[in-house]
C-alpha cells in the first residue's frame, strides 16, 4: 500500500537532500498521498488522537521532571511546589495527570474499534500485536507515574502491585525484594520507578513508529472490512484524513480541557493528597480507573497465584486474538451474532471496571467472577466457535459501492 514515493523535489536543496536522506519523500508518501479507505468513520480518528496524547504526555512530563524531586522525603512537596510556585505548574501537572486518563480512554476506544471492525485479522496481525505491546507499556508507565507524587494511594498501589510478584512460587519473595531495591517500598523503589517512567514513553514512541510502519504496509481496515480495490475506494491522506483527524482531535481536546480546567481531581483519589505513610493503610486501595477491569479480574480469583495469572492472561489473550477469531468476515457490520457478543463484551468490560472499584465482598465477588468468565470465554470459546457457525451477511463488492447511493436510491 505504501508504494513508491511520487515525491518530486522542486528546489535544488531538496533535490540534493532527497538523494541523501529521502525524509521529505517519506513524509510525502506516508502522510500526504498515502491512500486511506474513503469510508472511514470517526472511530478511526483515535489513532491520531493517541499519537497526539503521547506527545502531550512526553512534553508535559519532561517539563515536570525539571521540577520534580524523586525522593521519599521531598517528592510530595516537590509536586505541591509545582502546583504552587512553578509558572503554570498547576496546568502542566493537571494536563499530565488527566492526560493519562485521556490517553487510556482513547486507547480503549481505539481497541474496541479494532475489535468491532475486525482490524486485527489477516494481514494486520502484527499491527494488532504491536498495539497490544503498546498497551502493556502504557499500563506499566501509567502505574509508575501514579507512584511518583508519593501520596497514600501512590505508596499503597506500589505496595499492592509489586507484592503480586510474591505469588510466584519459590522465587516470588526474592523478585519482590529485587523490584523494591530493599525490604519494603522505599526510596530505591521511587527512584527506579521515576527512571523507568521517564524511559518507557520513549520505548512506546519507538513501538508506535513500528505500529505506524506496519499500518502503512497493510493499509487501514475500514467499516466494511473489505480491501480497497480501485482508486475510487480510497482518498489521499492529505487533505481528507488530516482534516477529519484534526477536527475530531480538537473535539477530543474539548473533553480533555473540561477535565483539566474544571474537574482536574475528578479522576484522582483524595487519599493521594495525603503524604505517603507506611504506617497507615487506606481503607480502600483502588487503582486508577483504567486499571479497574484488570483489578477486578485479579480479585475475582480466590487464589493469589491464579489471580495474578488471570490478570496477565487477560492482557496476553489479546495478542492471540487474530487467531482466536476464526471468521473470515472482518466487520461486525456483516456479522449479526458477533455484533451482539461484542456489545456484551463491552458491557462486561465496563462492568468489571465498576466492580474493580467496589470492595471485594458479597455479590460484587460473584458478579466479578461471572464477568471474568465471560471475558475469557469471549476470546477462548465464543470467537473461535462463532466464526464456524455464524451466517454472515453478504459483503458489498467494493468500498465505493457501500458508501455511494446506488442507482435505485437505496443506501447500502
Amino acid at each position, binding site marked *: 500500500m505504501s508504494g513508491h514515493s511520487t515525491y518530486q523535489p522542486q528546489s535544488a536543496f531538496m533535490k540534493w537532500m532527497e538523494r541523501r536522506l529521502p525524509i521529505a519523500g517519506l513524509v510525502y508518501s506516508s502522510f500526504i498521498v498515502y491512500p486511506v479507505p474513503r469510508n472511514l468513520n470517526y472511530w478511526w480518528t483515535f489513532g491520531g488522537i493517541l499519537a497526539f496524547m503521547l506527545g502531550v504526555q512526553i512534553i508535559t512530563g519532561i517539563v515536570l521532571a525539571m521540577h520534580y524531586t524523586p525522593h521519599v522525603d521531598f517528592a510530595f512537596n516537590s509536586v505541591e511546589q509545582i502546583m504552587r510556585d512553578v509558572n503554570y505548574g*498547576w*496546568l502542566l501537572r493537571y494536563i499530565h495527570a488527566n492526560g493519562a486518563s485521556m490517553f487510556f480512554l482513547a486507547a480503549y476506544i481505539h481497541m474496541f474499534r479494532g475489535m468491532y471492525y475486525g482490524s486485527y485479522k489477516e494481514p494486520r496481525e502484527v499491527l494488532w500485536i504491536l498495539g497490544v505491546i503498546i498497551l502493556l507499556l502504557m499500563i506499566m508507565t501509567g502505574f509508575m507515574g501514579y507512584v511518583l507524587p508519593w501520596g497514600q494511594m501512590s505508596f499503597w498501589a506500589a505496595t499492592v502491585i509489586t507484592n503480586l510478584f510474591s505469588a510466584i512460587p519459590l522465587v516470588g519473595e526474592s523478585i519482590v525484594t529485587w523490584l523494591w531495591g530493599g525490604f519494603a517500598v522505599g526510596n530505591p523503589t521511587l527512584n527506579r520507578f521515576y527512571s523507568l517512567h521517564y524511559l518507557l514513553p520513549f520505548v512506546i514512541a519507538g513501538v508506535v513508529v513500528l505500529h505506524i510502519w506496519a499500518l502503512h504496509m497493510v493499509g487501514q481496515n475500514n467499516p466494511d472490512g473489505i480491501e480497497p480495490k480501485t482508486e475510487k475506494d480510497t482518498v489521499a491522506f492529505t487533505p*481528507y484524513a488530516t482534516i477529519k483527524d484534526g477536527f475530531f482531535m480538537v473535539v477530543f481536546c474539548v473533553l480533555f*480541557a473540561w477535565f483539566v*480546567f474544571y*474537574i482536574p481531581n475528578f479522576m484522582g483519589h*483524595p487519599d493521594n*493528597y495525603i503524604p505517603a505513610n507506611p504506617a497507615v493503610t487506606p481503607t480502600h486501595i483502588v487503582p486508577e480507573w483504567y486499571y479497574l477491569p484488570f483489578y477486578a479480574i485479579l480479585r475475582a480469583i480466590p487464589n493469589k497465584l491464579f489471580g495474578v495469572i488471570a490478570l496477565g492472561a487477560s492482557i496476553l489473550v489479546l495478542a492471540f486474538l487474530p487467531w482466536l477469531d476464526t471468521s473470515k468476515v472482518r466487520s461486525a457490520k456483516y456479522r449479526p451474532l458477533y455484533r451482539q457478543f461484542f456489545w456484551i463484551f463491552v458491557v462486561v468490560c465496563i462492568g468489571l471496571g465498576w466492580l474493580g472499584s467496589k470492595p471485594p465482598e458479597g455479590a460484587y465477588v460473584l458478579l466479578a467472577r461471572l464477568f471474568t468468565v465471560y471475558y475469557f470465554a469471549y476470546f477462548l470459546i465464543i470467537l473461535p466457535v462463532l466464526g464456524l457457525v455464524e451466517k454472515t451477511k453478504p459483503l458489498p463488492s467494493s468500498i465505493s459501492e457501500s458508501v455511494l447511493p446506488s442507482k435505485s436510491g437505496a443506501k447500502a
Partner: protein
Amino acid sequence: MAIARTVLVLAASLALAAPALAQEHEHDTPSPPTNRWSFAGPFGKFDRGQLQRGLKVYREVCQVCHGLKLVAFRTLADPGGPGFSTAQAAAIAAEYQVPGEPDDQGEIKPRPAGPADSFPTPFPNDNAARARYNAVPPDLSVIAKARGFERGFPLWVWDMVIQYQEQGPDYLTALMQGYQDTPPAGVTLPPGNFYNKYYPGHGIAMPPPLTDKRVDYTDGAPMTVEQYAKDISAFLMWTAEPHLEARKRIGFQVFIFLIVLAGLLYFTKKKVWREVEAH
C-alpha cells in the same frame, strides 16, 4: 439482538441488586450536605472577605494544632487569594517566629517570619504532637483536596457534567458542625475521642473546635459555628488550590478557542469532503 438484550437485562438487574446485597458493609456515615460555594462552577471565584475571615479562624483556632507548611505568607498577597497587600502579608508573617539561620557561634535563634517563609508547624515532629494530643493533627495545606466522600452511582456521573469538585470543603464544613455531645445509644468511643456523625468511624480525636462568637468578625458576617465552618473550609480550599481562579479563567478562554477552532475545522472538513462524497 435477542441474545444481547437478554444478557444486558440480566447483567443490569444483577448490577442493581449487588449494592443492596453488599449493603451490610457500608458505613452508616451520612453524606455531607452540599453548600453553595462562590468558587464552584466554571466562573467560580473566591470570596475575598470569606478567605480573610477563614484565615482569621485558622489563626485563632486551628493553628494551635494544625500547620499550613506548604503555604508561604507571600501568597496571601497573590492574585486570586485573600486579597491582602504585600505589606499586609509581610505584617502577618512578622507575627510568627521561625528558626533563623545559624549565627557566628552556630546557634539557631528564632527570628520573625518573612513573606518567603511558610506558616510554621505547631509541633517539631509527630511524636511531640502524639505525646500531647494522643494523635497527630494533619497539616491543613491540601486537606480540602485530601478529604472527600463517595457520591455513588449515578451521582458521580452527573458530577462530571455539573463540575462538582467541592467534596472536600463540603465535608470539612459538615465535620465542623457534626459533633454530638452524647453518642447515639450503643456506640462506644475510644477514650479521649469525640462523636462526630460525619467522621468515618465517628470517633474523632479533635475536640469540637468551634463555638458561636469564638472568633470576632468585623465585617458583619454572622459569628456562628456554621459561618465559621464555611469560612475555614473556603480558606482551606484556597490553600489547597491557590491557582483555582486562574485555572477557571484560562479554562474558559481555552474553551472558546477550542470550540471556535472545532467549528472552523468542521466546516473545512465538510467542504473538503463534499466533492468526494458526491461521486
